[in-house]
């Protein structure tokens, strides 16, 4: 057996030597200036017009979707919504740097990544109306999307649970010899959960090809980042776990794209995790269940509105001669109409029949669930008016 020495590589000092915040500089990659022009020293990532346009169009689409769905929640048509306004670049541009074979394990504010993969407006609506067209069978609150054909893992509400899962998923991909990685999204708040630490440490020790993508958007519901952690953001933790780390301006689509592209190459080639901390800002409320005016100022929000990733990218596209204002207006208008039309259709689709209350608990429905279903059906038949969504279909 090999001798191990945990002192290897440890230097010696003869005075008390204190290491503290600030001694290690973790800079933030920024390629585009807030006005959309390239930084002098910056290298534009290799990106073709089609990809750039698709990133831009997806960000515009998500902003429309978010606006409309908040409206739909206010009208009482869906129970809950959670917007990503201001953070579109973080999820969309990172997803653009991946292969479609890569697994996405998201938190719940990465609708941009899902839309980039090709999730349709109708699919979004079916999930949010929990209807029987939703492949998740209407089992979760709105915005907990999941789609196997798109390699987008079904979202779970408990925070951070997807982080060690992503390490394990990536390990499985490596062992199976797939040329694919896993990307795992989460917020800076979720990074306080034990699962974050477990997941990063395991990925580093077990050489898992996974990108941990933290959207540091400044808030966990109402709790600001400075009440969440005292260290140098989330990036500093990557170093502690021996994980290669990049900090990036999350409102700069080109920087996010470049960082994620490189992270993917490293993860795949070296079989290792990479942590990306994207510095951004949650211009939206946490969800439709809270009101940010209770915990932050309008002035603070305005400062970040000026750093809007969509505006920034539009200016860069213009400078490349890739921006068509007329087409963009049409796209936004069409997106609005599509969302409204799909919303109207999906809200009329039935929920799953009552039999689905017991499917997918196990691979087959066991005896006790069959018994409970039979009892429930008899009861529904007795009180059909009390259970109008299913009683008409109970045989």
């Amino acid at each position, binding site marked *: 057996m090999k001798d191990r020495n945990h002192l290897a590589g440890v230097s010696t000092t003869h005075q008390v030597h204190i290491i503290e915040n600030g001694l290690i500089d973790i800079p933030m990659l920024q390629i585009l200036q807030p006005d959309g022009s390239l930084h002098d020293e910056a290298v534009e990532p290799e990106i073709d017009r089609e990809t750039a346009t698709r990133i831009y169009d997806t960000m515009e689409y998500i902003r429309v979707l978010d606006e409309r769905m908040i409206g739909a929640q206010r009208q009482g048509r869906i129970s809950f919504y959670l917007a990503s306004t201001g953070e579109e670049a973080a999820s969309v541009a990172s997803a653009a740097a991946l292969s479609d074979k890569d697994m996405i394990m998201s938190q719940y504010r990465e609708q941009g990544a899902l839309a980039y993969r090709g999730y349709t407006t109708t699919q979004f609506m079916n999930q949010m109306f929990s209807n029987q067209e939703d492949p*998740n069978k209407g*089992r979760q609150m709105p915005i907990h999307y999941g789609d*196997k054909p798109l390699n987008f893992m079904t979202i779970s509400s408990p925070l951070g649970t997807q982080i*060690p899962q992503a*390490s*394990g998923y990536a390990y499985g991909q490596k062992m199976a010899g797939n040329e694919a990685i896993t990307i795992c999204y989460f917020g800076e708040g979720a990074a306080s959960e034990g699962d974050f630490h477990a997941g990063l440490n395991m990925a580093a020790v077990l050489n898992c090809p996974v990108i941990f993508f933290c959207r540091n958007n400044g808030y966990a519901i109402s709790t600001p980042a400075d009440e969440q952690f005292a260290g140098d953001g989330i990036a500093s933790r990557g170093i502690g776990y021996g994980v290669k780390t990049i900090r990036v301006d999350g409102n700069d689509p080109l920087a996010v794209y470049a960082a994620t592209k490189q992270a993917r190459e490293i993860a795949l080639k070296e079989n290792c995790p990479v942590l990306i901390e994207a510095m951004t800002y949650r211009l939206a409320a946490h969800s439709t269940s809270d009101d940010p005016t209770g915990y932050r100022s309008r002035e603070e929000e305005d400062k970040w509105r000026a750093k809007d990733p969509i505006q920034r990218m539009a200016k860069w596209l213009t400078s490349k001669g890739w921006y068509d204002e007329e087409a963009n207006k049409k796209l936004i208008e069409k997106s609005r109409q599509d969302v409204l039309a799909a919303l109207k259709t999906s809200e009329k689709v039935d929920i799953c029949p009552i039999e689905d209350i017991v499917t997918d608990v196990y691979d087959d429905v066991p005896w006790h669930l069959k018994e409970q279903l039979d009892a429930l059906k008899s009861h529904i038949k007795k009180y059909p008016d009390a259970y109008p969504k299913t009683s008409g279909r109970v045989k």
Partner: protein
Amino acid sequence: MAKMNLLQAINNALITVMEQDERVMVFGEDVGHFGGVFRATSHLQEKFGKGRCFNTPLTEQGIIGFANGMASQGSVPVAEIQFGDYIFPAFDQIVNETAKFRYRSGGQFSVGTLTIRTPYGGGIAGGHYHSQSPEAFFAHCPGLKIVIPRNPYQAKGLLLASIRDDNPVLFMEPKRLYRASVSDVPEDDYELPLGKADTVQEGSDITLLGWGAQIEILQKAAEMALDDGVSCEIIDLRSILPWDVDAVCESVMKTGRLLINHEAPQTGGFASEIAATVQDKCFLYLEAPIARVCGLDTPYPLAHEKEYMPDQFKTYEAIKRTLNY
């Protein structure tokens, strides 16, 4: 057939399945080169390589989170939690993730290939952090299966079935039998059914129901009762979730009496669930109240381990009380 103790049977089952299916991977704290603190994974790393049998950092929530991810990807993880007492950091991953993975995704994703192995139970002078029997916490969680073997033959057959079953299984191993229980175990591949109880001994006066290491306690108590002319039927539940109601009720309808024994504390223990179901299904057949012989409602005590245990003497007394009711 070969004589094996329970650990050797577990080890043999793991070798059997790892030879057949390269997607099977075994991991946990100290399971790698060292072969696990109880040696259940001895030599697996030598045989199958570090990629398929490996140490993890000391993080139970990480182990199960990692295992969930692997299973959802299509691998077949067999994750070890070193002691059942230390499974609680992973409670969220098991209850909110493992158990709900298939349901919440409408069957698109599942962790059905996952098996979690963990030693449980007392009788090894382990005190309250090396002796607990946490099955009831998990029995309350739809989506899991819970399996407990009582001897080496059962352990190999049930573990192979658990690993191949397309549902996540919590496989709880009675650690005081690890080396104490030795039996003939086929060297070939075989499976024993999940969700099915096993009648250990037929009898006519009372049904004694238990699982895992308590089956030998029931056997000793039944021998004592036999001297009094009482004929005991002994049933090993084997699967806690889903459990074999038909087998239990059929036996109770024959004997008219039921005694349930488990090591875990009485209040909220799995015996409560069984008693509620049996009185519902067999009310008119019962000649006496259902007896529970369980651990006390205390943390598992170290110095008072013998006094705490629902042993053969307590069981024998409860048999007499039930017969004389």
